[in-house]
């Protein structure tokens, strides 16, 4: 019986740990395990046979790291030969009745766009390993302990391009439920099952207690059997050794729960032994497996997130902005090979509520394929949203699907002969979803009836390649109302039929409807409301248009997709109020309000409050001296007591600064006052570029009425002293963050002595200490608040 049929009948038992068993049997640290196994065939054979005897249906070959990248760390080895020999050895150990899985794991390097290993180099490297495993006669493949979804994809593609053997992929998840690279289990499942994995799951990192939850999370979305290979508990460090201390019986006691949550293949990872597997097998004997709950799923993924399109979901907005058509700045950037605008547009659309990002790189003068691959690399890192690959060029789409570390949506496949012949098989190979555009060669069908026929025809051909209705999204074919006033109604009919009769997801390119019309946003928003009522699931639009997003939110409520209106309420509660709410009457005086505004860092209202204080008859200087300075002094005290922390201190200081600037015209002899209080020169010393602390000190001093001349950062001793000789400051403040630049403070002070400059010095910065300050005859301030106090003492 084939494995895929056996999985339907019973739970398949995998083997347990190989690495920790080899270590127990004497494999020293630091050796290449694969070479050590070849040199110690009896020991690895014992391990394999132990699992066969314990009841494993499938035993993994000891080829975990036998890929060319990993093996190169140990010297020059024939990777094909090592994989073949280890497979033959395993076969001899387990015999013909146990299935042998060719075990493949990470290269130890991250694959582009997440690391520096080229994607095609990774695929080619894994093909070497796969060839050896095939020569040795493996029955199936297992890709395991994967931390990077892109590397898992590279292995899966390598296998599928050489053989159609059953392939299991298991990722390894951290305590936070994600891979080290940030992929969650459902996202990994959606990506891998669509790319052709025959079973998906998790291994290593956690014990059974934690892993059973991962299986439960994946089960509702799985179209393939699920796999679990937990460790024997969580690792503990005892006397410098990593130990897994879960006893076999305890480990096995989780078997029933795994089965009930939907696992189909189960074994053990680090710390498990043949005893663990034997106990597990006994515990789950006779259990009936829970088959996958679905045959297909309408879902898309990026490297770190997924979007499920099924059920009564709210309308998904596909952000349309990443398209150079009509965008000169983006065109220029793409011509120069830069991607910063692409990343910014992605982030903006994500923040505005887009669920997916359309990516179109079609423009004259660039290599569209290279630019698309560059965009995919950048977007896979910059955004969590799944991508819609938008191109009329089949080669561009194929290259994009191969590199994209998730399940993409193709925009689009029409009824045109070339698209059917070439693009449909590409979409099938990479497991992509596609937008079905109801166009045929030389025909733009005007009526819904004609469109239905094309839709049915294309779907029939897609179904022959394994596609289901879940895998497609039907485009309503939006035409401009300005050129044909009946066109929008035909789109509505197409969407209604596709949603409610044909039974597929639907999409519209919304803004086409208003082409050639003024005030397009109203037509777009109105049409969106109409088409949502017909069952629309996705719209390609600009999420930055407020009217459109508000209509979407309202439409979701009225169409019953946002049932308790929680998203609607949340959306509008986050929007800034249009009109400032009337404040409750306050009994505070104008002076109190100014004091409070500085205390609270209320920059928005300070000018208005100062006007009020002046209207009540108080002079500007008096406001500064009797209200503002006491208030900012209290802020300093609060900061000292740690009741305030840095953002509050700065907000108050900036409010004070804004207030002083507002009062400036009324502070007639202000400059004279400042000079009387004292002039301070401040700088970050030569070689140092860190200046936040210095800027905070300058702000605080100014707020306390000192005149501050800020010379900036990386300032030489010569410039500081020359300025001091010119301006004759009372104090020079010096800042440095690094040990290497701190010594330049001394140089400044020594130069001042040589030039007979009569001036006091204050120093500060991360590495500067009170003792160091004393050693160079300077005064020390630990922060901006203390700097004010130090200077006030230095200038009585």
């Amino acid at each position, binding site marked *: 019986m084939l494995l895929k049929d056996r999985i339907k009948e019973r739970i398949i038992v995998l083997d347990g740990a190989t690495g920790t068993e080899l270590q127990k049997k004497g494999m020293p640290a630091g050796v290449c395990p694969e070479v050590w196994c070849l040199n110690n065939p009896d020991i690895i054979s014992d391990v394999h046979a132990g699992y066969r005897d314990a009841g494993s249906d499938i035993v993994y070959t000891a080829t975990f790291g036998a890929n060319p990248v990993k093996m*190169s760390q140990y010297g020059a080895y024939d990777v094909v030969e090592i994989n073949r020999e280890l497979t033959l050895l395993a076969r001899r150990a387990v015999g013909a009745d146990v299935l042998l899985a060719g075990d493949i794991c990470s290269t130890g390097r991250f694959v582009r766009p*997440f690391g520096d290993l080229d994607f095609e180099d990774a695929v080619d490297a894994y093909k070497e390993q796969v060839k050896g495993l095939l020569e040795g006669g493996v029955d199936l493949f297992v890709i395991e302990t994967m*931390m990077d979804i892109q590397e898992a994809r590279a292995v899966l593609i390598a296998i599928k391009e050489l053989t159609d053997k059953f392939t299991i992929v298991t990722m390894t998840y951290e305590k936070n439920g994600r891979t080290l690279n940030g992929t969650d289990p459902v996202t990994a499942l959606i990506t891998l099952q669509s790319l052709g994995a025959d079973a998906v799951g998790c291994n290593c990192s956690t014990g059974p207690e934690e892993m059973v939850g991962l299986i439960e999370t994946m089960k509702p979305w799985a179209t393939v059997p699920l796999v679990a290979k937990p460790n024997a508990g969580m690792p503990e460090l005892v006397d410098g050794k990593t130990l897994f201390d879960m006893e076999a019986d305890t480990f096995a006691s989780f078997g029933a729960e795994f089965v009930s949550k939907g696992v189909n293949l189960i074994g053990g990872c680090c710390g498990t032994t043949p005893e663990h597997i034997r106990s597990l097998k006994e515990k789950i004997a006779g259990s009936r497996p829970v088959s996958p709950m679905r045959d297909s799923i309408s879902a898309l993924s990026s490297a770190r997130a997924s979007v499920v399109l099924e059920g009564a979901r709210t309308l998904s907005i596909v952000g349309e902005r990443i398209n150079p058509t009509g965008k000169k700045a983006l065109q220029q950037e793409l011509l120069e090979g830069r991607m910063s605008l692409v990343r910014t547009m992605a982030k903006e659309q994500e923040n505005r509520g887009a669920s997916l990002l359309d990516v179109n790189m079609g423009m004259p003068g660039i290599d569209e394929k290279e630019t698309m691959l560059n965009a995919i690399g950048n977007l896979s890192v910059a955004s969590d949203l799944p991508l819609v690959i938008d191109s009329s060029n089949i080669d561009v789409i194929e290259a994009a699907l191969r590199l994209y570390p998730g399940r993409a949506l193709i925009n689009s496949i029409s009824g045109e002969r070339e698209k059917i012949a070439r693009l449909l098989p590409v979409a099938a190979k990479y497991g992509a979803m596609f937008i079905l555009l109801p166009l045929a060669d030389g025909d733009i069908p005007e009526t819904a009836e004609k469109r239905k026929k094309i839709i049915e025809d294309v779907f029939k051909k897609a179904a022959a390649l394994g596609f289901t209705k879940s895998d497609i999204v039907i485009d309503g074919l939006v035409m401009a109302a300005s050129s044909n006033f009946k066109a929008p109604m035909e789109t509505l009919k197409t969407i209604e039929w596709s949603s409610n009769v044909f039974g597929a997801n639907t999409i519209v390119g919304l803004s086409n409807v208003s082409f050639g019309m003024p005030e397009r946003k109203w037509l777009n928003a109105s049409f969106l409301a109409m088409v949502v009522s017909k069952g629309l699931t996705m719209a390609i639009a600009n999420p930055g248009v407020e009217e459109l997003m508000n209509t979407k939110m309202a439409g979701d409520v009225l169409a019953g997709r946002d049932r308790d209106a929680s998203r609607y309420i949340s959306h509008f509660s986050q929007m800034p109020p249009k009109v400032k709410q009337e404040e409750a009457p306050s009994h505070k005086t104008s002076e109190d309000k100014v004091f409070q505004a500085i205390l609270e860092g209320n920059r928005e209202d300070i000018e208005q409050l100062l006007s009020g204080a002046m209207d009540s008859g108080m002079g500007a200087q008096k406001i500064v001296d009797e209200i503002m300075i006491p208030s900012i002094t209290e802020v300093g005290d609060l900061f000292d007591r740690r009741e305030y922390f840095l953002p509050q201190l700065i907000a108050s200081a900036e409010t004070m600064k804004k207030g002083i600037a507002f009062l400036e015209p009324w502070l007639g002899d202000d400059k004279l006052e400042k000079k009387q209080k004292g002039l301070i020169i401040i700088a970050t010393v030569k070689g140092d570029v860190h200046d936040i602390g210095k800027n905070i000190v300058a702000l605080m001093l100014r707020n306390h009425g000192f005149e501050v001349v800020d010379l900036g950062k990386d300032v030489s001793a010569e410039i500081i002293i020359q300025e001091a000789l010119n301006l004759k400051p009372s104090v020079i403040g010096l800042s440095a963050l690094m040990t290497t630049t701190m010594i330049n403070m001394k140089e400044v002070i020594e130069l001042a002595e040589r030039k007979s400059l009569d001036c006091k010095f204050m120093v500060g910065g991360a590495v500067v200490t009170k003792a160091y300050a004393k050693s160079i005859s300077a005064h020390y301030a630990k922060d901006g608040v203390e700097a004010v106090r130090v200077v006030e003492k230095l200038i009585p």
Partner: protein
Amino acid sequence: MRSVPNLVQIFSSINISLPVDAVYRRLGYKRGITKVDEREKEKIERHIEYAASLVSLKGAGLRVPLERVDPALVVLGTGTDIKSAKLAGFLKGCKETLFIGSTAGSAVMNAIRGDIEGGDMARGVVIDAVASEMADAALDWIVGFFNRLLARESARLTKGRFSAGYGDFLLENQKMMYDMLELDRIGVTINENFILMPEKSVTAVVGIHA
């Protein structure tokens, strides 16, 4: 045994959870003492989110064998000597070291500069703290990655890590670490004062215990 020189491992995109608590701590927040009202808290958290959107974490790691560790001298397998009793004490008993580096990227530094010089210093200090903590957390991520690989070799990394500029492990060593880690490949430069640019870039040494 590992027999060929290792290659620098480059991480083009490091994905971490936003270390919000660490950011608050860096800004001087003390639980139970610091009082922040809801309006202010909301504003600070918006700044934190904004900062995180600007950070682009990249990193590098390199395993280097240790020739020997004397009381005040560490001799790398590459022939490089590092004079530091503190580092030697930290690496005692190790046969190998791991050099690591990370950067928060230049976009976030531009934003900090813009805010500090352009008038929103309150936001600037928050972004600065986020970038510092995320660059630091990226080193933790790299440590986690190597610990995973090392587990298979029955090896593990030392707890904690050591950076140039601390104790007698002089900041001048930053140049040697910069060169070994090929940090130019992740967009980092170093100046004559051994300061890494963009400023939110960090390096460290970790020991490997077999």
